[in-house]
């Protein structure tokens, strides 16, 4: 049974593996095993986060020292499989990087590896999600052009989010990911470290077992996360529906315009006006097409990212709860057992430190994440609203210029009548 922490060696270095395939990987390491330049003591770590807190306003102005792009999807066919690689180009001013520019080739699996490593080392930080492995609905092929493009953009966003994170951007794994020619030698052996988004019922039960009191602030956070998740799913659904309706509207519009053109062919005086209307309808169709593209390519992916973020948040909260549960179980053992007091006390202290670290990490990152979320969604909705406004302005202008041509004609006609 996992989650009991009863293996040998109470140094706290343990990997918790679920017996099912559903792996949930994190260490009980109190130090950052990936050798980052941050100090080890919890105290100074807390200070680190406090600083970040106060600098919330400054975060926005935080100078970017990473410029990363994900591009050029290429298909590779081997005897065993077919897969896509992406070109990852990094430009950086970081002193701990040997060069200022790198270009590597990475596949989706590599991104999964990076993210799972980050999760392992920072169990209660909020790490931006990766695009899903498969798309459930519809017959979307993995190698469908639009699927690849959507994935490429999501991978690009992922790397940018990581590289902007005050803690994660210093990860050794990130550095390896961005710079190493070959990633394979860096990937550890042993049972797969693929981190999955979901959890089994058992691991959920495990984390809840033994949890006596969860601090109020985290209960509030948990409730918020539940609500936020529901809202994001709804907004995502509504947006998808709007795109669908717009596409159907566009289809009909494309058939509507030509009815005017066809009619114009059997008219003489009226032909001009009919063609004018046909032209207006066609131009409006083009504008509609642009609007649809914006929704699909800008708004929807952002929303979808946050749907996945909500799931990440749930996972993070569960992990935090589990860490607390571990502490409480051990603490109870300490209080109830008479022997082994010294050893147990040491263990309990280590776990207490661990919970404090985890909580602080989460608190700090929560603020950062929430601020980022507000900024991202605000920007996405704002650009969409602007796009909408422009759409209506352009359509209005199209019809207005048609009216001008008609009014000119009317004046000509009137002059003609008076003259005759």
């Amino acid at each position, binding site marked *: 049974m996992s989650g009991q922490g009863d293996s040998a060696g109470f140094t706290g270095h343990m990997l918790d593996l679920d017996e099912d395939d559903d792996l949930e990987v994190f260490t009980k390491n109190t130090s950052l095993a990936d050798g980052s330049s941050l100090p080890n003591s919890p105290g100074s770590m807390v200070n680190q986060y406090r600083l970040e807190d106060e600098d919330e306003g400054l975060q926005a102005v935080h100078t970017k020292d990473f410029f990363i792009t994900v591009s050029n999807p290429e298909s590779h066919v081997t005897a065993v499989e077919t897969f896509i690689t992406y070109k990852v180009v990094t430009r950086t001013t970081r002193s701990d990087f040997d060069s200022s520019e790198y270009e590597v080739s990475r596949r989706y699996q590599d991104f999964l590896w990076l993210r799972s490593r980050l999760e392992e080392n920072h169990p209660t930080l909020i790490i931006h999600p990766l695009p899903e492995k498969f798309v459930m609905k519809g017959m979307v092929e993995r190698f469908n052009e639009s699927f690849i493009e959507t994935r490429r953009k999501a991978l690009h966003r992922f790397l940018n989010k990581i590289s902007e994170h005050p803690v994660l951007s210093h990860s050794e794994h990130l550095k390896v990911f961005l710079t190493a020619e070959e990633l394979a030698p860096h990937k550890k052996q042993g049972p797969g470290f693929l981190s999955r988004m979901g959890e089994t019922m058992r691991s959920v039960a495990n984390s809840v077992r033994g949890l006596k009191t969860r601090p109020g602030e985290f209960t509030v956070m948990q409730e918020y996360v539940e609500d936020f998740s529901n809202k994001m799913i709804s*907004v995502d659904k509504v947006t998808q529906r709007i795109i669908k309706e717009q596409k159907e*509207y566009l289809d009909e519009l494309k058939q509507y315009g030509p009815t005017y053109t066809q009619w114009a062919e*059997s008219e003489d005086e009226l032909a001009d006006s009919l063609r004018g209307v046909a032209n207006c309808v066609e131009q409006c169709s083009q504008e509609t097409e642009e609007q649809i593209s914006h929704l699909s390519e800008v708004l929807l992916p952002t929303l979808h990212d946050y749907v996945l973020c909500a799931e990440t948040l749930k996972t993070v909260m569960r992990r935090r709860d589990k860490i607390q549960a571990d502490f409480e179980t051990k603490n109870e053992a300490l209080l109830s057992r008479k022997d082994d007091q010294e050893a147990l006390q040491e263990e309990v202290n280590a776990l207490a430190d661990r919970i404090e670290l985890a909580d602080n990490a989460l608190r700090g990152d929560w603020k950062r994440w929430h601020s980022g979320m507000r900024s991202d969604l605000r920007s996405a909705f704002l650009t969409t609203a*602007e796009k*909408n*406004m422009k759409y209506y*302005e352009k359509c209005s202008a199209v019809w*207005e210029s048609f*009216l001008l041509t008609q009014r000119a004609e009317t004046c000509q006609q009137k002059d003609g009548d008076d003259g005759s």
Partner: protein
Amino acid sequence: MHTTWVSLSVYINFPPCKIPPLSTNKTLQMVEDGSTLLCRMEICVAEAEKRSGKNAMGMQETFSVYLVETRLTDSGPDGRNPAPDCLWRRYSEFELLRSYLMVTYPFVVAPPLPEKRAEFVWHKLSADNMDPDFVERRRVGLENFLLRVASHPVLSNNKILYHFLTEHGWREAVYDTGFQAKADSRIRALSATFRVRNPDKGFVEMKHYSDELQSHTSQLLRARARVADRLYGVYKVHGNYGRVFSEWSAIEKEMGDGLQSAGHHMDAYAASIDDILEEEEHYADQIKEYLSYAEALRTVCRKHELTQFELEVASQDLISKKQQREELATGIVRTFSLKGMTNKLFGQEAPVQREARLKVLEELITEGEDTVKEKTAECEEHVEGAWLEMQRFKEQKDKDLREALINYALMQISMCKKVPSSSTCSAS
């Protein structure tokens, strides 16, 4: 809902009362007294009401009636304007009037009535004849019909029209004219297939044009209805944003106000489509009017064809009768006939019999000549009248439809301007 006392229709401007050019043709002389009815009288269909009653089969039915109001514009001897007159008419009575006018003036392109049943309906629009929006649009269409008839140089002076507008006993008057029988025989004749030997080029072109007009307007209407349906869907789905944003705003501190405001805008946006599309139905009605006009135009062409055909038949008949007379008189058989053969085989008939037959033939020939003269005159009259009428119709059509297209553009612009630009502020 009363319309104001100005003789304008909702969507077209009627020509000022001009005196049409003089003509020696006898039917056009009807117009020579100068003005149309609309110059002397204001007409409107002011209201619509629901009524119940027993129909011809004794069953209870609900139907709509329309209030026809008229007022003479010439002030009376005391200098004051006369009081308005009004009476209630059913749709079926309008149909009767139109049917009468079509039979009486076969070369006139009869103004159409608004549709009997709602067609080209998109899914949210009611197909119910009792639906208040439908009734209202029908009221407008009926008024338009009357205004068009009353401003027509030929139709407007008709007495039965005057009865329809002013008297309760108009039904008796219209049935007294005996038009029904003529209408029935025309319908029968028109539904038969016949071929004209020398079709008038102008009419052939016109008929072809009417087919084109019918086909194009109905395609346009069908496509427009589908577009309307889809646009409705787009707007309404945005209403879902309204709900979600409102709920979401409740769990956010910093974003709460922005989300609330965005939610309200989404609701307003979703609600705005109903009025937009209702207004667009008026545009659809204008196109529908010309769809029906195309049908009326086609009928005029067909009636001409029938007249032409009847003339050809009468002429052919006359020719063959004359030939028969010649044969009888001279004894020379030019054409093969059974009589001729039997004569050859069994001997000719007695002179007395021949005389008798000749006499009958002469009478028939005289009759035939009269028929031909009549039909020729009818044809010529029809051609001249119809030709002028079609010119008039073409000018009216070009003007009306151009205005309709302009109105459509204005509607589109107003729809674009309706979208609140303050929705961008709400997002922040």
